[in-house]
């Protein structure tokens, strides 16, 4: 499997452990990644707030760069997925608009062609389940995550709006994390926040609303007995992990729950060491998870 790979901004900014663990896991799974290093930010919905056509054109450029490789495109960020899907939907719906956008891109030797070679843009979670396959993933498991109680945290942008995100064709996309956790040998923890918002988009505008969301979900997962959370979204990771000590103050309780990026959880089951996966860079300690996996802490 060979893919055009858009790592996004945050995986090369404040969550480099995501970029690194994705590279490691891809290699172990036999997935070749062709990184789109010339591609630009997806706009995260914020550029669209300012100027929709600007966001559409910027993402059309990324799609065109991916199409130049002739490969399907992969991202590792729920927010990229959502923002890019929104632009792709608008581009695909209207040939005149597409032509208008392509006018700019043609000056750069680029063109976005709807449906070219069956072009798709999927995040790692969707690819893992729909294209790589859970059976094949199960075969790769070297260290089953036995006894590890994992709470899924999706990130809004891969869950809603359903009509835009391909749920007609793939109605179980909001259950994939559960499937992956189980295939890796872990135990799914049901809690209230799995498909709710981490609060990150308003961290600069309403810190209290933002951190109350993050703190509530982390607290709910702890109350449900989770050893850790797993998320396919690095922006969720920023609020759930990096801001966790601040969120604890807002919800006025002790937290301290490890939050893993999806490739890290997969990597652990493939036998990679926590350090190789960059887990020491997290703000919320991952020590408990490591001890659970080493069998040192009773269930």
């Amino acid at each position, binding site marked *: 499997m060979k893919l055009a790979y858009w790592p996004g901004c*945050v995986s090369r*900014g*404040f*969550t*480099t452990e995501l970029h690194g663990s994705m590279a490691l896991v891809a290699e172990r799974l036999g997935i070749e990644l062709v990184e789109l*290093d*010339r591609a*630009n*930010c997806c706009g995260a*919905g*914020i*550029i669209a707030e*300012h*100027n*929709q056509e*600007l966001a*559409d*054109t*910027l993402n059309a*450029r990324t799609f065109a760069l991916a199409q130049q490789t002739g490969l399907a495109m992969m991202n590792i960020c729920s927010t990229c997925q*959502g923002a890019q899907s929104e632009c792709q*939907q*608008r581009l695909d*719906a*209207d*040939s*005149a*608009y597409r032509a*208008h956008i392509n*006018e*700019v891109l043609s*000056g750069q030797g680029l063109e976005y062609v709807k449906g070219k070679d069956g072009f798709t843009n999927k995040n790692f979670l969707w690819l893992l389940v729909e294209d790589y396959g859970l059976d094949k993933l*199960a075969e790769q498991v070297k260290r089953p995550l*036995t006894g590890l109680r994992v709470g899924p945290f999706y990130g*809004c942008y891969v869950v*809603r*709006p359903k009509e835009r995100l391909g749920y007609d064709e793939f109605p179980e996309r909001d259950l994939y994390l559960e499937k992956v956790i*189980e295939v890796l*040998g872990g135990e*799914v923890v*049901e809690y209230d926040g799995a498909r*709710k*918002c981490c*609060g*990150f*988009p*308003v961290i*600069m*505008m309403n*810190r*209290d*609303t933002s951190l109350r*969301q993050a703190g*509530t979900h982390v607290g709910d997962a702890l109350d449900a007995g989770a050893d850790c959370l797993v998320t396919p979204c690095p922006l969720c990771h920023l609020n759930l992990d*990096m*801001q966790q*000590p*601040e969120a604890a103050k807002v919800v006025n309780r002790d937290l301290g729950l490890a939050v893993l990026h999806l490739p890290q959880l997969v990597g652990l089951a493939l036998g990679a060491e926590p350090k190789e996966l960059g887990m*020491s860079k*997290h703000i919320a300690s991952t020590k408990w998870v490591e001890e659970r996996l080493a069998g040192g802490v009773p269930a």
Partner: protein
Amino acid sequence: MAEYTLKVRRYQPESGQAAYWEEFKVDLDPSLSVLDGLLQAKDRDDGSLAVRCSCRAAICGSCGMKVNGSSTLGCKTQIGEAHEQANRRQKEDVPPPMGADEEYKPGSAAPGRGSNGGSISDSPAVAGAEEAAPIVIEPMGNMPVIKDLITDMESTHWTKIRRVTPWLLPHGEAPEREYVVEPESMIDITQSMACIQCGACVSSCLSMEADPDFIGPAALAKAYRFVGDPRDAETKERLHDLAHDPHGIYDCTHCFSCIDACPKGVAPMDQIMRLRRAAAEEGVDDDPNNGANHVTAFVRMIEKKGTNDEALLVQESHALGLKGKLKPSKGAIEGLLKSLPTVLRAIKTGKARSPSKVIPGVHPKLPGGSQDEVRAIYRHAEEHREEFNLYIKGEDEDFVEPEPDETDMEETA
């Protein structure tokens, strides 16, 4: 006809008891609605089951409720589909066979987790694996419950609607006859005009869960209905009010819940994003929530760097132009100071060790001529000053052929 189980959250304040769950068996065609199921249960089993409804055709907006956790209208949700959704969720409670070849199917025996498996005997879902999952029905969220599925719409929904002055404030004296407006000028507000005030978006709102004072999706969609109306004279005042309120347009966390909940395609979150854009265009850029600053900082940064310079974004969102000519706005220093502990922790763990991640503005640009390409895109898109009507128009089938005649686009006019 098929049999369904409705698991309903009941609550009768006069009983003095806490809320409880009750299951009803109903028997009806899968194409009928969840509301039909509830009315059958009320008719056959318990006449005291309280549910508000009237038209049964998604017009009156009375029967807002949560079905399997999602806010919707009971009359617009087919009971067969709700049943399938409930089954999919129940299935995930059951541990699937590890490494098995066959597809995991609902109702198939759960063989445990292979050699590594933990005990599955304590999972209640296993015993019921062959049984159909119940359709879970609850009253709407973010509102007090009066009885069973009936919520108090006044204390949250209507109070917030009134908050945004939901009527036209026109220029000067009313004309002798009707107001005359261009049909095109109303396109932008047709979506928000479709609202039937059912409260499903309010029920689903995740920001309101964290901040009950948030004005919320229904009221803000209503606000855009007047902000976007060419007859209204108080556009800037309305926007100033909603941008400066700490629970206003910048309190929306962009979670799309209201878009999925709305039974009429109002897409309240999109209307909130339109309000933000309108605020910037009307020069309302000094809100104490740093909302306008954040957008401007982000947009400028991508023009300059191509990807997100997080350190610069933190700084510029709080105090746009701090590095340059402008002095920081009120609250900006406080905002920056509050983010310091987070940054320091990140440096400590090595999450942000390299300078480009903690020093604003050091972040690298895109390689080669890519940054110039991004700038060219900015120049092209920023030339247009009008609000595009970029609603999704629907799938065009002819993408293989060139279409020289399609010139009906709003933005090419």
